[in-house]
């Protein structure tokens, strides 16, 4: 049975749980608790361990969607999940005080997934705050991960179409890189 694990990471309130709900075929398994950090994100509950959703490809094959908790104190979960993941959807909300800085922090933490598979950045709430622009995110990525081209999209985590675009482009990017690497091996 093949396992394809995709992580959804990002700061608290970026829309990870919602994004998984938009994609998952099963009811999302969430481990939420009352949010005691109202300054960071004004919502009732927050994920404390992980969210889980899945998309079945056939009887055996599944794409597993894991949402990792946004708070740094749960970073032990990040390590566990990173080992199994082939790709990362990093969600950042554009109206955060320093969204580029937040993205960079998460890329430093999860950047190894780019080499292992791929990363896509989804910028949420760009309708609330129009800046920074996507080109600013691209510049931020170049600072922390030079020579890595990571797709950045504006998304609404509630929008299934947006989330499909995110997921499909992540997978396609992984496959394209693998195919090109394979070709280069052959010609070397």
């Amino acid at each position: 049975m093949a396992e394809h694990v995709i992580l959804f990471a990002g700061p608290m309130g970026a829309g990870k749980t919602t994004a998984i709900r938009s994609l998952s075929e099963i009811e999302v398994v969430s481990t939420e608790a009352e949010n005691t950090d109202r300054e960071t994100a004004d919502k009732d509950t927050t994920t404390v361990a992980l969210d889980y959703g899945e998309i079945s490809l056939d009887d055996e094959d599944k794409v597993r969607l894991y949402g990792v908790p946004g708070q740094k104190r749960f970073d032990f979960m990040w390590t566990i999940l990173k080992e199994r993941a082939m790709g990362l959807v990093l969600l950042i909300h554009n109206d955060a005080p320093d969204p580029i800085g937040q993205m960079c922090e998460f890329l430093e933490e999860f950047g190894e997934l780019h080499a292992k598979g791929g990363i896509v950045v989804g910028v949420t709430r760009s309708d609330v705050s129009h800046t920074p622009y996507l080109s600013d995110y691209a510049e931020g990525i170049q600072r922390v991960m030079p020579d890595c081209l990571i797709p950045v999209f504006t998304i609404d985590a509630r929008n299934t179409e947006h989330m499909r675009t995110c997921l499909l482009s992540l997978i396609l990017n992984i496959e394209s890189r693998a195919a090109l690497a394979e070709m280069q091996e052959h010609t070397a």
Partner: protein
Amino acid sequence: MVFQAMLKPRKFTVGFADLSPFYQAKIVTLVESLSEDEGFPWIPLGTDGCDLLIASTEARITPLDHQIVARLIDEDDDEAPASLTLRVPVTRLSLIELLNRAEEKLSASGTKTPEARPYLQVKRLPRQDEAGDAAGAATQKKAFTALGGDMVARPPAEGAVPEPARGFAGGADGSKTNWERFEAYDSAPSPSTWRQRLTDGPVPGEGELPQPVGGGQPFPAPSPEMASPAASRSSTGKSGLDAWSEVAMTLYSLMQNNAQAIAEISIAGTETVNIDFRFRAYQSTAAIEWLPSEPMFTSIRTVQAEPHWPPAFALPGKPIDSFLWFVGANAFRGGAAPWLKPEERYRLQRWPNLTDINHTMEDMRMTALLGNTYMNAVELSSASGIKLEAATRLVNAYSLMGLLQVAVQETSPVPIPTAPAKSKSSPGLFSRLFKKLGR
């Protein structure tokens, strides 16, 4: 100089909003005939930054601080008290009455001086060189020729090209019209160079153009400020270019120059797209899906925006990339954009925002390939198994959007897969996922 400026008689400008070309031409002609009298303060201005806007009764207008609006009303319409109106049929007398009242209002309102208020600078006129438009073109050209140096209320920018070199005055002394002056001033390759290249192949002297630097996209040379081609008609046009191609070339020029400009594109005389490059946004009278892929004609006008100007429309507007994608994908009839060169390969320097642009899965597949290696359109088509025309359109569009970096083709090309990409580690996951999720 200050003393002279203080003595200079105040000039007022009149423009139009949502008025039929017939009435525009009629009013412009009358204003021009009146302006032959010394001291007549009114000048027609073909943009919406003027002092007096004459608009149809239906037009919904939010005037700028310095502006007043007059309505063109029908013969039997009631005139609202205290409002400025111009009744049809428009006569010399009724126009003089309106302009006098407007002048009084503007003077009384203590609006900003012309030097201080926002202005729109018409860089280039829509060229209506089709035989059927000859009369209209003559009228319009004459009208814009009337833009004297006095009325261009433009504070000289530091380091700007000296005013006389790009003045818009002319006509009375037999000097060149605006259009001709622009051509004369435009030392950079004009769109006509591209047109010639597109239709006749490389043009003489092309090798003298600066070559692309570093990883940036190629651009023949910076234009003086903005090179704005004029109106173009589709395949029947003299230029041989379709309507979107002309628009694409102007937009490409603006993008490459990082121009802080505002552009107004008229499509087939029915729809209008306004772009404010400062905010990377556009606004359209019709949803982008409803814009014609092969319009009969388009025209584009551009103005250099000053930093203090308000946005050209209510922000946020729509992201500019989605319009550039539309134009790039529909221009050049599936052939390569004229600024692309056969010896070049392209790679994404950043991904497009796929949630903004109307893409297909084929586009996404090609995008992923371009994100990971340098390719030209032929190689991209071969690697993705997608038609060359689709690959060419994608390269055109991404190039217009400024997403590509360029490498001159190596003798020994990078290895390119010749079949649709498949992953070694997880074969066909995309295909299966796509089949599952669909679109």
